[in-house]
Every structure is written in structure tokens, then in C-alpha cells.
């Protein structure tokens, strides 16, 4: 193996399991890669080299003792900084949590550790996962490995960029309105949002509790499925976790990789085929769907009339929940405290801390949500948005009576230059136009590379019914056989 950073997670797991390479070698190679490129990409907020090497050595020791290793044992992984990691800084890319080290691990972290995976560090994101470009990080932007002058998507831009830049074979993202899938699309990687409740939220710092879903980020579909199997499944510590086994996602990915989609019905959402997407994106997605038809799939046009209300409904529900979820950052127990001079009142200290600690997008959403939940406005805003949510769910259910999965662009446009959409929040919000419906419904959705537009990656989104995650992995894996794999620029040398 010449460069283990180019290998897939599945290959790495096999090589480590067979002893052809050690977990420590693999970890060191990735730490070296991070050292080589991350000053340009800035995917990471915190690299835990010491912890990573210790974890890798533990895997090597276990193997030396003859223990049976899991398929991802020793494989490095990057974790979005919104996931609580015991003893390791967890900031949500916010000043308000600077220096906070959680005293506990998220459930998915416990599962990642139990699988023998090696955490490299914590990745950059839009503050509290609010944004579509990672420009709202309080700690500086992450750059798209395909073009360092462009955004890597968001909110999980750090996780997507780390994987695209070969700094990690796998990463964890969280998807509330598209924060796994849209960064996947614009960085040419795979981003999978499992069924809501299929992966535990315990330890995911909440943005919008009824929408937040942790999921895999990878360079290929099988790797995503392998990670999905590690982190998925019922968690008694999350009341919204579904008490059912993980759907057979790995098996489905392997089946899809045979390239046969005979009898699979793809639903083309009529409401998503209009002017929404850039021509280059629409064309690439069309080509990708044509390629799936060649594999035996059938295309059926379906109508989801309420999808056009998804974005406004989302921008009431998510900020409402956020306004409550983010109340706890009040300077009393942890994180930033500003103005505590012994003179000022508690209310003033809370207020000054929140003023200084939260960035503009977070404040915007807290104010929006506070307003939407206020007495006298609740029914018109939050209540109405919940009704829209039900209608969107009904649209999905009706569509899935006709088709197996829905296909659409992941995001209307390719990665845009920094600053292009920060002046008008609505232009930024449009990035999630196609991803939000699945969040409101709760079903799984995945973004896979679908070619290039103007040299920048385009994503194809595949949406499936709740707990039919396996179905979307099968189609996604078949897609890989029909569409040439995207290879991001190596970033080697001094192309900064």
C-alpha cells in the first residue's frame, strides 16, 4: 500500500484486520496528511493526535492478542464538532462553548470507539450547524478542496472537506436541513442522512431536535453503509430513537454495486424539475438519472405539491426549537462568561455573554424562533408550520406508493465563492431547497457524486421511506457503477 490515505475505509479495515498495515501506520498517515493540507483546507478545529495514536495502538494490540476485529477497526474518522466527545473540546464552532470539554461521550461516539475506530479530531462547521457554507464558523472558514476559494458547503463543511481532501476516509456529520448532503454534493463526496431516529441524537448538541440526524460522510457508498451500521440502532437514552434494528444497509450497498437496478422505480419530483437548479446542476442530475435507467431502473414522475412550502415551514420549526435549545448557553454552568464584574446583575451577564458568544446567523435564528413561539403568534407560525410538515409527510407517503425512491438534485448550485451568499440570508437558505423535505418527513436521504458542472462537483440525492435506508444505499451504490468516480485535486505541493 503506497498511500493509505487514498484507500477506502472498507479496504483499510480489511488491511488492518489482516495485519498488512497497522492501525497506527494508517493513523499516522492521516495525521501527516492533515499536517500537510489542513492549513489550507482548515477542515479541523481540533486534532487529537495523541488520542488517535493511543486508540490505533489499542487496535493493533487487540489484533496481536488474536481478537477478532470489526470491519472498521483501526479506521480513522473525523467528527463534526457538534458531537460531544469526552474530554475532547466540543465547541459547535461557537465562541460561547470555547474550551468546553464534555464529561461524556455521545452514544454514536461510544459505538465508534467500541468498533475500534480512531477519532482524528473535530471538524469545522457553521456555528451550531446553522448555515450552508461553513462561513458562519466562529473559528474561520473551511475551504473546498476542489477550489480553495469556494465554500465546502455547510453546516458540515469541515467533515466533507476532510474526507474530500483525504485527511480522513470517514467522517460524522449531522443533517437538520441538508448539512450532511449539501456539503457532500459540493465536495464530490457521499453524505448520508439516515432515517430520523435511526441514529441516536444523545450527545449531538441540539439545533432542531425534531430534525437533527447524525450520519456518515465518506468517499464511497459502501463506506457510508459500513459506518451507518456502526452508529445506527436503538438507543434507550434517546426517546426519539426507533426501537428497531438497523436496516441491512451494507448488504444493500453490496447488492447495488452489482449495477443492476431492474424493477426499481425512481420517482422524479415534478416540483423539483423546474427552474430551481442551475442549468449545469440540472444537466448533471439528468445524466445521472439516465445512467440509472440504463441499469434497469424505471423513472416515474410524481407530484409532491407541498414541497414548495418546505423551506418556509423549516425556517419556522428549526429556529423555534433552536431558540429553546440554545437557551442553556447562559454563562452559569459552562462556556463563555462575559461581564461578570460583581456589579452587573445575572440578567446582564447572561445577556452580555449571549451577545458576545453567538454569531449573526445564530442570533437571527434565535430571534426568529422566539418570535414564532410567542403568545399570539404560535398558531400562525409554529402551529401552521407543523401542519405543513404533516402535508409534506403525506406527499412523501403518497409518492412512495408509486415509486421505491425519489431522486432530485441535492442542492441547486455548485460550491459558490466565499461571501457570495452571506449578505442575503434567503440566498443562503436556498442551498437546502431540495434537502429540507426529507428532514421534515424524517425519511433517509443520501447525496452521491453525479459528475461535474464547470469543474465543480454536483450531487444526486436519493430519498427513501422511513426505515428503508437500505433501499437508498442500493440505488446509491448502483449509481457509482454508472457514473465515473470523482477524484478531487490532490492539494499536493504548494497550490495554496
Amino acid at each position, binding site marked *: 500500500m503506497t498511500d493509505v490515505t487514498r484507500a477506502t475505509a472498507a479496504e483499510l479495515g480489511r488491511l488492518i484486520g489482516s495485519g498488512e498495515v497497522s492501525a497506527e501506520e494508517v493513523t499516522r498517515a492521516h495525521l501527516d496528511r492533515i499536517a500537510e493540507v489542513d492549513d489550507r483546507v482548515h477542515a479541523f478545529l481540533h486534532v487529537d493526535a495523541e488520542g488517535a495514536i493511543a486508540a490505533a495502538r489499542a487496535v493493533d494490540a487487540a489484533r496481536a492478542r488474536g481478537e477478532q476485529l470489526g470491519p472498521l477497526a483501526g479506521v480513522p474518522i473525523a467528527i463534526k464538532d457538534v458531537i*460531544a466527545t469526552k474530554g475532547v473540546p466540543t465547541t459547535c464552532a461557537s465562541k460561547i462553548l470555547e474550551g468546553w470539554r464534555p464529561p461524556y461521550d455521545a452514544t454514536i461516539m461510544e459505538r465508534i470507539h467500541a468498533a475500534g475506530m480512531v477519532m482524528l479530531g473535530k471538524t469545522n462547521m457553521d456555528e451550531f450547524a446553522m448555515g450552508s457554507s461553513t462561513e458562519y464558523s466562529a473559528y474561520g472558514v473551511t475551504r473546498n478542496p476542489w477550489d480553495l476559494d469556494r465554500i465546502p458547503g455547510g453546516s458540515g463543511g469541515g467533515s466533507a472537506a476532510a474526507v474530500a481532501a483525504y485527511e480522513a476516509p470517514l467522517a460524522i456529520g449531522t443533517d437538520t436541513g441538508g448539512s450532511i448532503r449539501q456539503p457532500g454534493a459540493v465536495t464530490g463526496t457521499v453524505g448520508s442522512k439516515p432515517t430520523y431516529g435511526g441514529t441516536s441524537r444523545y450527545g449531538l448538541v441540539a439545533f432542531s431536535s425534531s430534525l437533527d440526524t447524525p450520519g456518515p460522510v465518506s468517499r464511497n457508498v459502501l463506506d457510508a453503509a459500513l459506518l451507518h451500521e456502526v452508529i445506527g440502532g436503538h438507543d434507550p437514552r*434517546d426517546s426519539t430513537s426507533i426501537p428497531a434494528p438497523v436496516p441491512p444497509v451494507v448488504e444493500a450497498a453490496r447488492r447495488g454495486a452489482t449495477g443492476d437496478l431492474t424493477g426499481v422505480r425512481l420517482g422524479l419530483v415534478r416540483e423539483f424539475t423546474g427552474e430551481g437548479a442551475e442549468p449545469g446542476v440540472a444537466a448533471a442530475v439528468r445524466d445521472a438519472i439516465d445512467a440509472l435507467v440504463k441499469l434497469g431502473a424505471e423513472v416515474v414522475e410524481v407530484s409532491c405539491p407541498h414541497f414548495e412550502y418546505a423551506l418556509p415551514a423549516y425556517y419556522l420549526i428549526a429556529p423555534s426549537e433552536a431558540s429553546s435549545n440554545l437557551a442553556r448557553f447562559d454563562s452559569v454552568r459552562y462556556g463563555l462568561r462575559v461581564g461578570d464584574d460583581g456589579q452587573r446583575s445575572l440578567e446582564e451577564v447572561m445577556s452580555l455573554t449571549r451577545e458576545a458568544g453567538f454569531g449573526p446567523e445564530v442570533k437571527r435564528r434565535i430571534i426568529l424562533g422566539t418570535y414564532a*413561539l410567542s403568545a399570539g403568534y404560535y398558531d400562525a407560525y409554529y402551529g401552521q408550520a407543523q401542519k405543513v410538515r404533516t402535508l409534506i409527510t403525506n406527499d412523501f407517503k403518497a409518492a412512495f406508493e408509486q415509486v421505491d425512491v425519489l431522486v432530485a438534485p441535492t442542492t441547486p448550485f455548485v460550491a459558490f465563492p466565499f461571501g457570495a451568499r452571506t449578505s442575503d440570508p434567503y440566498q443562503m437558505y436556498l442551498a437546502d431547497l431540495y434537502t429540507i423535505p426529507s428532514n421534515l418527513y424524517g425519511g433517509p436521504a443520501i447525496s452521491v457524486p453525479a459528475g461535474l458542472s464547470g469543474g465543480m462537483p454536483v450531487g444526486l440525492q436519493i430519498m427513501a421511506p422511513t426505515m428503508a435506508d437500505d433501499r437508498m444505499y442500493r440505488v446509491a451504490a448502483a449509481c457509482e457503477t454508472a457514473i465515473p468516480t470523482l477524484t478531487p485535486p490532490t492539494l499536493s505541493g504548494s497550490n495554496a
Partner: protein
Amino acid sequence: MTTTAPSTVEEVITRYEPVIGLETHVELGTRTKMFCGCPTEFGAEPNTQVCPVCLGLPGSLPVANKAAIEATIRIGLALNCSIATWCRFARKNYFYPDMPKDYQISQYDEPLCVDGYLDVEVEGQTVRVGIERVHLEEDTGKTLHIGGATGRIHGATESLVDYNRAGIPLVEIVTKPVAGTGALAPAVARAYVTELRDIIRSLGVSDVRMEQGSLRCDVNTSLNRPGEEWGTRTETKNVNSLRSVERAVRSEMLRQAAVLDAGGKITQETRHFHEDTGETTSGRSKETATDYRYFPDPDLVPLAPDPAWVEELKAALPEPPRVHRERLREQWGVSEHDMQSIINAGAVELIEATVAEGASPDAARKWWLGELARRANETGVELAEVGATPAHVAELQRLVDEGKLTDKLARTVLEGVVAGEGSPSEVVAARGLEVVSDTGALTAAVDEAIAANPDVAQKVRDGKVAAAGALVGAVMKATKGQADAKTVRELILSRLGAA
């Protein structure tokens, strides 16, 4: 026109009709907290019974405690409520340092139990108190404000927060407005809280100890002139004993009547009750009501109690305290009037427990309603907190029955018990109070008395038995009252050959 403030509730009701309402919070005695596995024991070192969930650490999530839901449903059933087939927890949003998440998980428009009632007995009348709702929520932490004159946050220089209590399951029981009780309003309020406490205790879901805060009461009071609409109500907080519930209503009735008599208006506000003065003072005004921005908690799945399970719980409810008391009344052979005195004194369970420890119902009743009730009244504590336990009382009576204590000595021993000197036997030993029953010692005292009073002794020998009283008195004096007078008398008569 000159008005003098009314001095009695009877005077108030010549001009006004009171409407009262009660909101009672009961901390459930579940082993673990409402949304996490932390223990709930009272009195632990601050911040030792906490975890990421009850501290509201970023990323943590609540999971509802099934035992708490069951306990709430049982309370609802015991209060004749309908149990929701589907309901949700809601978030009540407000910033306060004793609230780890800066919102409280509570229930809003979808409570677990609704529309019940509780019948209470007051002065021979049955008053039906309507129950609006019974819902489940989490308790907050406890804040200690240091440096201020009032112990409240205003003026304090430092605040200490203990989160041990944060997340303890709390049941809120809200009555419908209770009108038409007139001068009985304060007594109805007390009887309601007493009955509620007894019911909850009989269910075994809480120790309902007001002084430890496991039962807390807010009392709403308003007055209106007959025939007019209900008046503006005040909410009196910090009402921490049964006696205070009664006093708080009385004090608010008097205060409001004085304001109204003087042509003033009642401000809708929170008032604080002061145990020492028995009066209320103004707290925060409720004119600018806080907007709590309630919404269904997305972290928790809806509650949908299976109707069959609810039926099972209903079938398994214990005997209601009223029925139980009637059975006890018959067993103890007391009149309804006497039973009411026992109830009013809060002595039912104490007497029941004392009887269970071996005392006769009469003896148990005599001690609890006599000596101990007097002590409790003097020191202003609940009878149950007077310092003697049912086991103490039973032991005391046993010592009397065995002739080791006279009635008079027993009272002295009880004083020692109440003062915390230990069990009756321990007090007897420590204070050397046992009846002098050693015949040798007693005979010596008798002989001494006879020798010292030869004239009296002669009279007795001559058959004037009544004269022996003087000798008995002398012996009792010599033994400092620790001899049994009857025994002494018999001994004197026998020594003088008059028996």
C-alpha cells in the same frame, strides 16, 4: 367614611364572598429522577446527584421515567380524574440559573389527568373541590442567594445553585376555583391539602413532607361582593405547612377586605407568606405576564397510556383515606366528633401506627391528642414533627401499664423524649425516673414516715384508715413522687395492721 380593617373572617363574609384555588406541587418519591437515572434522596451534598441530563449539558437528552408517569396516573385516578389517552410534555421557556436548560419540561395544554374532584369534610359538611388538572413536570434546582437582606435575588451579591433537586419528578395538582364556602374557606383550603396529602401518602408515591418541600402549596384567593363577578385573585407562595395554608387564606381574606373596604383595588400579583407573622407581602406583579413560549418538547415522544393499563392501576388503588378512616373509627370505637378532632389534629396515622406498635387505641389517642398536641401547638409544629414517634408513645404506655411509670412520671418522660433525649426507657434511665417499686426501699420510707408521725400512725391503728393519707403524702415526698401511691397506701396499712 371611616373604616376599620376587619379582624375576623366572619366579619369579612358579611360583605364579601371568597373564591379560593390551590396549586399543589408534590415531589414524587421515585428512586430516580424524571428524565435521567440520578438518585432523588433528600439532603445529599450539593451537586452530587447530577449527570449530563439533569445538568442540561449540551447534547444530553431526557427520557421519561415510567414510574413517575404511573404515579401521576394513580394520583389522577385517586382524584377521580380522566386519564389522557395521548398527551405530550411541553417546554416552558424562561431564563433562571436554577433551571439547567433554561426551560422546564412540563405539561401545558395536554395534561396527563383532567377534570376530577376531591370531597373534603369541614365542620360536618362535605365540600367537593373540583380538580382542574394533574400534570407531570421536572423540579428545578435550588438557589441560595447570599448577601441580600431578604434572601432573594435582588440585593444578593452571590448566588449558589444546587442541582440535586433539578429533574426530580414533580406532580402539579390544580383545583378548579372553589366558591361558596364563606367563612369556611380557610378551613376548606387546609382540609383539601390535608386530604390530598393523605391520599398521596396512601398511594405510596411521595412522602409528602411539607417541611422538606416534597409538598408545596400556592394558594389563590379573591373576594367579591355578593352577586358580583369574582374578584381579582392573588397567588400566595411559600405556604409550607397545613396550618399556614389556613392562615394564608385567612390573612389574604382580611387584607383584601381591608383594601376593598377602603375603596382600593386588588392587584393581580404573587404574594409571599411569612410563617412568623402569618401575613403575606407583595412579590412580583403579574401584570406583565411572562411569555413562556410553551411548545411540545421535541425530545420526548408523546405519552399514550394504554387504557387497559390505566384500568389495572385503577383497580389496584388502595382504600381511600376517608374509607380507611371510617374503618379505623369503628375499630377504635370513637364517635364521629372525636374522629374529627383526631383528623383535625393530623393524628390519624400517628394513632394508627401507635396502635400497631401495641398500644390501645384509647391510650394512643390520649397521648397524641393530649400532651403531644399541646406541645405541637405551643411550638407551632405539625403533630408528626413534635419529636415523639408512634413507637415512643407505645413504649411509654407499656411502661405505665407495667407499673414502671405513673401517669405523672410518664408526662415527665415524654418531655424528655420530645426534647430529644432518646426513647422513653432511655429517658427513664438517664433521669432516674422509674417508679420506686423495690419493696425494701419503700418499706424503709414507710417505716420512717410512721416513726416521724406517731400520732397519725396511732389513729390509723385505731381504725381511722382515712388518716393514712398524711403518711402516704410523707412517703411520696420522701421518694420524690417516684412511688406508686396505691402501693404505698397498701404498705402503710399493712405495717399498721389496719389492712
